[in-house]
């Protein structure tokens, strides 16, 4: 591993403390927003809603509490369907656990900010419909852009970073601040996106992040007497100028012979960091976000009544060399193009059992032609009681990292869950995650993280 667990934990704690220091500022912001809300009722079709959610995870073996989150989510939308629309989503949450190690911190908890939490503007954008010409729609502001036809794991969706906060809850994204315009032609649509600022991927807590980040360091060939234990990880963000921090993308899409088809291009950066230099004297590892170009394509349609889809992308990364003073320069990300792809199908049987399966080459976090593994996902789902109860008895992901010896190089994640909706707007989800594996792969790295989770949400 690049750094020790405690070091990463310290980094995480620092991040949480920074979050706390702005807590009061955020509350003031909410007050101002609340006052401003009164002026919003003049908007057309104003709608204010959201949800309250609590989510808790506990480890199987040691009963360690691994996730504690209480969230208030507020959504505001308005518009008139033909001319414009606006949407905003704010999230206020208490997150993590009380961190107190002195009596003084107990004295005036609110002031010391010992209860972690934060406010996040998840999305805030303005839509202009049929503007400036009737065949063009514009979206301006903080927005989540999700491309691709596959289920949750999309190689062509590279604009909005992945939100890997809850690692096994794939398919969530973080908004980016940018501009999106779509031209709707008679047979072809063209979408163009420009995002001037860089937004990195959000990582899960330290014990999970290490599984993701170690993927980059596993290939390092350090001398036997060199250990990176205890090193601090330091992120180097791209310079805040259009050359370095911006990303742009375009997509052509059409409908042909019963299939939705699209071709896309992306220029920007990986949203997960890669080590670029190590300072042995300062015990610091510097990580950067390498540039990358992606050409992708996807389709979705049906054969008979079976839904099918496929998606593939060729990645053209920039080379990243790891600089360790006194040691030969090592290539941690080569510039050789590589392909990630996914194909899947789904079907609902007459008895209501829904089945969804996908095969993919290259997971969300895997970069470089030498680091791609093969995966199979399989999900079975059935509704009962007029959709009041949803049972997912099987949600499985299997990975193989070396086909020459699959019995020693595999990973397995089994995530069953049960969702019950006792009333309208109330949803209770109970589930578990069982992880197992051998060799070098994501699920093997998490195999000691088996857990149960409970999530309750009430929408308003």
């Amino acid at each position, binding site marked *: 591993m690049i750094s020790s667990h405690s070091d990463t934990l310290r980094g995480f704690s620092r991040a949480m403390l920074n979050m706390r220091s702005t807590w009061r500022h955020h509350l003031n912001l909410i007050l101002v927003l609340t006052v401003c809300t009164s002026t919003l009722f003049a908007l057309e079709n104003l709608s204010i809603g959201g949800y309250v959610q609590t989510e808790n995870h506990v480890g199987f073996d040691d009963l360690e509490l691994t996730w504690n989150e209480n969230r208030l989510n507020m959504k505001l939308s308005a518009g*008139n369907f033909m001319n414009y629309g606006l949407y905003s989503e704010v999230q206020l949450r208490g997150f993590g656990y009380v961190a107190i190690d002195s009596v003084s911190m107990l004295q005036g908890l609110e002031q010391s900010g010992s209860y972690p939490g934060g406010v996040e503007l998840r999305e805030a954008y303005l839509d202009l419909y049929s503007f400036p010409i009737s065949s063009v729609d514009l979206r301006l502001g903080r927005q989540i852009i999700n491309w691709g036809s596959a289920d949750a794991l999309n190689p062509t969706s590279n604009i909005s970073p992945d939100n890997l906060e809850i690692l096994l809850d794939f398919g969530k994204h973080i908004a980016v601040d940018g501009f999106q315009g779509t031209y709707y032609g008679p047979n072809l649509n063209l979408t163009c996106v420009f995002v001037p600022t860089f937004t990195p991927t959000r990582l899960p807590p330290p014990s999970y992040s290490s599984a993701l980040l170690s993927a980059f360091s596993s290939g390092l060939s350090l001398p036997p007497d060199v250990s990176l234990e205890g090193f601090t990880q330091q992120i180097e963000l791209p310079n805040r100028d259009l050359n370095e921090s911006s990303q742009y993308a375009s997509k052509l899409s059409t409908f042909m012979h019963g299939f939705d088809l699209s071709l896309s291009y992306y220029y920007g950066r990986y949203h997960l960091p890669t080590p670029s230099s190590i300072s042995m004297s300062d015990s610091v590892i510097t990580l950067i976000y390498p540039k990358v170009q992606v050409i992708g394509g996807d389709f979705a349609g049906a054969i008979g009544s079976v839904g099918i889809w496929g998606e593939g992308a060729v990645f053209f990364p920039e080379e990243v060399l790891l600089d360790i003073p006194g040691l030969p320069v090592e290539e941690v990300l080569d510039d050789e193009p590589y392909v990630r792809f996914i194909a899947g199908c789904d079907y609902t049987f007459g008895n209501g059992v829904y089945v969804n399966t996908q095969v993919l080459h290259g997971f969300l976090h895997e970069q470089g032609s030498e680091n791609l593994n093969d995966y199979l996902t399989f999900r079975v789902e059935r509704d009962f009681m007029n959709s009041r109860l949803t049972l997912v008895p099987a949600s499985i992901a299997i990975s193989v990292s070396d086909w020459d010896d699959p019995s020693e190089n595999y990973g397995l994640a089994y995530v069953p869950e049960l969702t019950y909706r006792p009333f309208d707007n109330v949803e209770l989800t109970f589930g578990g995650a069982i992880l197992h594996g051998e060799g070098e792969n994501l699920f093997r790295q998490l195999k000691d993280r088996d857990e149960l989770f409970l999530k309750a949400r009430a929408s308003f």
Partner: protein
Amino acid sequence: MRLSTYSVLVVVLSFVFATGAFAQSLSAEEILTNADDVSNEAPDLKAMVEMVLIEADGDQSVREMETYQKGADSRLLRFLSPAGQRGIGFLSLPDDVNYLYLPAFGSVRRIASHVENQNFAGTDFSYDDLSSFRFGDEYEPTLNETTDTHYILELTPKSGISTDYSKLLMWVRLDNFYPSRIEYYNRSGDLWKVLEQDGIQQIQGYWVSIERVMSDVISGHSTSMCMTDVEVDSGLSDDIFSQRYLTRIQ
């Protein structure tokens, strides 16, 4: 008020057939064709819909949505409530091309026709039931009986048609050919669901049922659907029935 050729035809036929003089002279195919014509007569329709889901023990929950419909096979549905489902949209296009928009994911997902026999959003209506398709395209009719007020047709699926129903019994009104009741039988031949279409009235010269109740006689669950603010033949643009409009904020 602008009447289509079909409207004029229906009015004339209604008068003639109300006398009962020629009631027996129509074949089952002709009756079903007339019923399909009347049901899909409006070139387009826009309405607010309130669905009330009624449990076997009487508990109720409400879904509100807006619906846009054009021709026999283009429909856009968008949920307004409950809060947890607000913004979810469903677009149904010809040739079994369906899309689902989930605001939480910010993306449109293609849905294959395997969902058509599944219940829509916990209601007793399947996706197929909500589609405004022509029964004559998928079922072979036979005339079982003619009463003082209705033709009673028995519809069996044509070969190659995938459906969970083994047969349908359809009550078609003598006076205007509007189907007022449909019984759906499962593959075992047992009565499964009953659709009652009430509030049948002319809006802009087109016959429309604004109150529909679908009852699942096996589970005891039922769903009533009431349309308000109905606008017919308002010249809805084809553009509305597109992914572009499915994702728009309202």
